[in-house]
């Protein structure tokens, strides 16, 4: 099978779809963001606001960046899954198969067999979260260090958890709230709503604390270098100590912590969804319904 020119052009277009959104975000940031001196810890910048009847809808940096991440992931997946074959597979098919096998294995290990088709969702959460956190490597504002974005994901997971808790009907769910003793119902209710809040705060706090510490360290190194090298005429103007040293922190905070938080968010999603699902009761009821149908025949 030889690659034709059309295939190559489509490959290049998909690669461009992968890279271009991030480049566009960088250009937009350079054009719009005012230059800053010293310590500068700000939230997401508002690019423009759309007037809405109830309240103005601000389009912020984190939204634009997360759209770019979505486009990048779409481009990457389309690029990886092009020209799939059964025999003598290419490198990119190996990569795609590795990703699919890993996520499926994760779902198989951590969830009930009832959720065996959860692989794509968990893969999406992993990819979106990891790519959003890794966006700070390009000097962009990481969407995960904005509470609104992460809270949106957490609310989505909360809806999913509650949907699977309701699988045996609302009465069974309400009965589950009064266990083990009826007095503990308020605490159970608080626990129910604490799940999305703690998930959102965990992810957001980890990423944000990394960026805050990075800014503080960079500013401190600037002061230190002006203290040490300040007496040299021309070189003293350049913050020499800022070159390279913050990168060591960046390895932990951007690479390791970003990927770890994505993994933890996906793991917690799996555990909460699988743990909230009343599996025994659900299958017992289903067996009862099947038996009734059989007897009716």
């Amino acid at each position: 099978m030889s690659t034709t020119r059309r295939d190559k052009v489509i490959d290049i277009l998909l690669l461009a779809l992968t890279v271009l959104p991030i480049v566009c975000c960088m250009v937009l940031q350079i054009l719009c963001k005012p230059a800053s001196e010293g310590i500068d810890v700000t939230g997401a910048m508002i690019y423009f606001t759309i007037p809405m009847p109830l309240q103005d809808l601000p389009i912020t940096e984190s939204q634009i960046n997360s759209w770019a991440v979505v486009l990048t992931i779409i481009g990457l997946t389309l690029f990886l899954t092009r020209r799939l074959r059964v025999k003598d597979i290419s490198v990119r098919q190996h990569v795609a198969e590795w990703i699919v096998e890993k996520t499926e294995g994760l779902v198989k290990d951590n969830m009930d067999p009832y959720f065996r088709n959860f692989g794509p969702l968990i893969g999406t959460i992993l990819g979106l979260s990891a790519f959003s956190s890794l966006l700070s490597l390009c000097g962009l504002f990481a969407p995960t260090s904005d509470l609104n974005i992460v809270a949106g994901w957490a609310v989505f997971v909360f809806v999913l958890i509650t949907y699977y808790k309701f699988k045996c009907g609302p009465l069974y769910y309400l009965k589950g709230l009064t266990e083990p003793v009826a007095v503990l119902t308020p605490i159970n209710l608080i626990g129910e709503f604490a799940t999305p809040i703690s998930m959102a705060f965990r992810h957001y706090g980890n990423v944000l604390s990394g960026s805050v510490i990075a800014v503080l360290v960079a500013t401190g190194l600037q002061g230190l270098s002006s203290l040490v090298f300040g007496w040299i005429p021309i070189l003293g103007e350049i913050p020499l100590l800022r070159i390279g040293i913050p990168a060591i922190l960046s390895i932990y905070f951007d690479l390791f912590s970003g990927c770890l938080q994505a993994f933890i968010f996906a793991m917690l999603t799996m555990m909460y969804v699988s743990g909230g699902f009343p599996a025994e009761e659900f299958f017992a009821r289903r067996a009862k319904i099947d038996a009734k149908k059989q007897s009716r025949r």
Partner: protein
Amino acid sequence: MELAIGIILGCCALGAGMAMIAGIGPGIGEGNAVASACEAIARQPEQKGAVTSTMLMGCAVAETTGLYALVIAILLIFVAPGMFVGILKDALTWIPTL
């Protein structure tokens, strides 16, 4: 007026620092978790993957309380001073004698 704003800023910074005392708890907890994980890996090296992923999960859950404190500290540093100074200025507009 300057004194009032100074007290507000100083108290916000103090509160942020005191909130981060909560960092001790997760530190001890995660240290215990990692120590136990090391022991478990030393006893059964073939279970390294499972032990490591369970340890990371436990660390993440233990970290949550520290992150609550971090969020409160960040709110106190970046959000609260502006809010309190705004409230003070609003109050001064309708109590001119202060």
